[in-house]
């Protein structure tokens, strides 16, 4: 379908996906993956803001022992809402549904995802799920923690049904996104785009989609059982009626452990792109990184039991789950070593996205290695349900996924909106967030190893200095985020127009204009090695990179 539009240089193309049509309906009922991705982006950033506010309230309450600003009941609701909003509304859909939706078809050289209507439907489901979650918050919230453990969740009088129904619906949104991505990658690759010509971000999204499709239905049935249990008293998880509450934990973690790989895998994919582009060097160990994504996806299904080391599992099961947990370290380490090897002797450009990539490697390194402490049975008995756990999963989820998401956001921002943000402010914000993050969460490792339990409203005075430091760190992070929000919003109106290829990347999305036209490409792009930068040269007049000759195959 060559449209005949040959303005391939891009800078002067008038018609882009943002201006293609106008009005609320042209957005809310669009079938264009780029617009759907953008709507997801706005939605998840709203959820991130909301979850962030809850987090700051929780940290403020913990500034002093006893009551600081709220009572214990409110505190329980606050940390539950923080967890539920951040996980179900922000991190899980974050990279795949927002960035992935925008980037995947373009990177692949396709016009859209395989099922555009299903894509839109999944966004509408997301909105519906979010409305249920917000309704639950409006009615007074939930105080169970985001894991909804039974039997407390079936007996508490907070609004568990609305929240779990919201999470159930969000699960289907996630399933449909994953299904769409798998089919798109299998069936819509244009001629020349073989599996091993695919950028590593797509491999990561593929691994993520496998988990989304295979794990999320189990969460669906679990939450459904919880709802039925609360509404009708079925008793599957209620010991008073002969049920087994630990079965709930098994069901819940059978999804929720793979779900942490739904969060981290696409983040790793982004880092693979960033590290190579900003080192101006071909990615090292392409196939190893690609296969390690799949390996993590598969191994992620086999380790859920490590959440129940202290719930009365048999010793044999504990040992098996512990060993399997350690095995996840192998593909993760393969990725880290390959990134480091890619940077080795590369021409490293410290632009904002690369700063986030470097932060990711550092923070994920800590997050991943402390996971090994927790996978060791004897150590886990000591650290279970302490702040050590809280610090560990914040290092992986926030230090890992959120930092990678921010890196990806800064990397693709010019492509999404056609505007450049202020680079200096970008670097400063990244630095502030990095310092703030470590101040907040490294102290929690220390606190946790000294025995401070998680989720507690009160604490003994000896923990006060740690809690203080942690809270101040969270304020510093908030400053960084507000600075980022400021310069990103500013760039939309006052930013310099973005060139076609500002970073000198070799993947296909940088061959089309910024922002891309409605059909993604005016003509079919030439597929080549996604990490060959040899024939890209900087042109100060653009200012950006342009291609000399065709891509190397």
């Amino acid at each position, binding site marked *: *379908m*060559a449209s005949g539009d040959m303005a391939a240089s891009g800078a002067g193309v008038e018609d882009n996906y943002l201006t293609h049509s106008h009005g609320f309906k042209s957005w809310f009922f669009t079938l264009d993956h780029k617009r759907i991705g953008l709507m997801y982006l706005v939605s998840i950033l709203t959820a991130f803001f909301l979850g962030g506010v809850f987090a700051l309230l929780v940290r403020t309450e913990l500034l002093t022992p006893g009551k600081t600003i709220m009572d214990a009941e409110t505190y329980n609701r606050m940390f539950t809402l923080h967890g539920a909003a951040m996980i179900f509304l922000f991190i899980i859909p974050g990279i795949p549904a927002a960035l992935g939706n925008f980037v995947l078809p373009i990177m692949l050289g*396709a*016009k*859209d*995802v*395989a*099922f*555009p209507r*299903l894509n839109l439907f999944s966004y509408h489901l997301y909105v519906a799920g979010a409305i249920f979650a917000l309704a639950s918050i409006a009615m007074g919230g939930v105080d169970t923690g985001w894991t909804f453990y039974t039997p407390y969740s079936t007996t508490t009088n907070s609004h568990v049904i609305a929240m779990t129904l919201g999470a159930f619906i969000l699960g289907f949104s996630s*399933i449909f996104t994953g*299904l*769409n991505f*798998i*089919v798109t990658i*299998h*069936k*819509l690759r244009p001629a020349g785009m073989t599996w091993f010509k695919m950028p590593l971000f797509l491999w990561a999204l593929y691994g993520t989609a496998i988990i989304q*499709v*295979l*794990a*999320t*239905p*189990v969460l*669906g*049935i*679990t939450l*459904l*059982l919880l709802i*039925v*249990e609360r509404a*009708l*008293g*079925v*008793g*599957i998880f*209620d010991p008073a*009626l*002969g*049920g*087994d509450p630990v*079965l709930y934990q098994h*069901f819940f973690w059978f999804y929720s452990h793979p779900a942490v790989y739904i969060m981290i895998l696409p983040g790793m994919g982004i880092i693979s792109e960033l590290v190579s582009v900003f080192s101006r060097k071909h990615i090292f160990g392409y196939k190893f990184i690609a296969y390690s994504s799949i390996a993590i996806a598969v191994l992620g299904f086999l380790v859920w039991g490590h959440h129940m080391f202290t719930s009365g599992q048999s010793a044999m099961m504990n040992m098996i789950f512990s060993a399997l947990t350690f095995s996840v370290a192998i593909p993760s380490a393969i990725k880290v070593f390959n990134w480091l090897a890619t940077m080795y002797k590369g021409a490293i450009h410290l632009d904002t996205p690369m700063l986030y990539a470097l932060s990711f490697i550092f923070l994920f390194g800590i997050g991943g290695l402390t996971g090994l402490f927790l996978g060791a049975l004897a150590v886990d008995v000591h650290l279970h349900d302490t702040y050590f756990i809280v610090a560990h999963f914040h290092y992986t989820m926030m230090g890992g996924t959120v930092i990678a998401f921010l890196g990806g956001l800064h990397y693709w921002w010019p492509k999404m909106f056609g505007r450049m943000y202020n680079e200096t402010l970008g670097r400063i914000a990244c630095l502030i967030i990095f310092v703030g993050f470590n101040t907040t969460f490294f102290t929690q490792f220390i606190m946790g190893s000294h025995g401070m339990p998680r989720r507690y409203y009160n604490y003994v005075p000896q923990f006060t200095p740690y809690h203080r430091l942690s809270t101040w760190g969270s304020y510093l992070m908030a400053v960084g985020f507000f600075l980022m929000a400021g310069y990103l919003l500013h760039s939309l109106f006052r930013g310099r127009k973005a060139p076609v290829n500002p970073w000198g990347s070799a993947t296909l999305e940088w061959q089309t204009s910024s922002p891309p036209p409605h059909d993604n490409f005016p003509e*079919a792009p030439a597929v080549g090695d996604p990490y060959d930068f040899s024939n890209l040269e900087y042109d100060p007049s653009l200012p950006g990179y342009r291609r000399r000759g065709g891509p190397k195959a």
Partner: protein
Amino acid sequence: MSTHEHPDYLGHHFETPQQQYDSSKLGMWLFLATEILLFAGLFCAYSVYRSNHPEIFVYAHQYLDKTLGGINTLVLICSSLTMAWAVRSAQTNQRRGLILLLSMTLLFGCCFLGIKYVEYEQKWKHGLLWGKRFHPHTEETRSHEKTAPSAVPPAIASQPAPVAPPPPTGEDRSLIEAAPRGPAGLAAGAIEERKPGHEGSRPSNVQIFFGIYFLMTGLHGLHVIGGMSVIGWLLVRSVKGHFTSEYFTPVDLGGLYWHLVDLIWIYLFPLLYLIG
């Protein structure tokens, strides 16, 4: 680039009808995988409770009506046949055959739900429900037996009533033979002598079985309703003449879904009705 023929049914982002068909089919298979995993949670709960408390399952399953369950199994198998035949009709451009076969499938679906309703109603009447609502009022059951024996499911009727112990049928024998494998309370003699409504003879937590029974068959029932809605939609579209031998993807996919719903029942029937 194939700018030539781009039929109406072909999405703008596909190159050929074949590519679109393959994509849809892969998407459907993935969706079916998620459906199986949705049910897997319940099958898993079933296995856990059955292996931990076999006596509950052996005891409680006899309250399910094997005849009605068996008829329903047959009904669904027939509906799968008509559905497969409908897909074939669509592929060979036989519009009238397609309409007829889809209608028959729909009819079998209604039949299944009707029979399921009768079963549920009996359970409801006898208080054989889940968790909190499990209040078996077998005294009423007995008086009910006298007034309207036809409404009583065979499993209940096979319970030895003090007035007239029914002659053992084939079903009963299979029950009795299975019992010794359970705990002592389930020995053949115990069943023979058990007075309905006598608490002591019943293993504790029988409500777990009925909880699982209602969850599994209920979720399956919802899927039957979903499948029937899809078939109804296909029927409307085939009356409008949307399907040809060139384009029959929705019929094909609807058929796959219906077969899955059928298949799940094929597992539910023996696991719930034919234990022992």
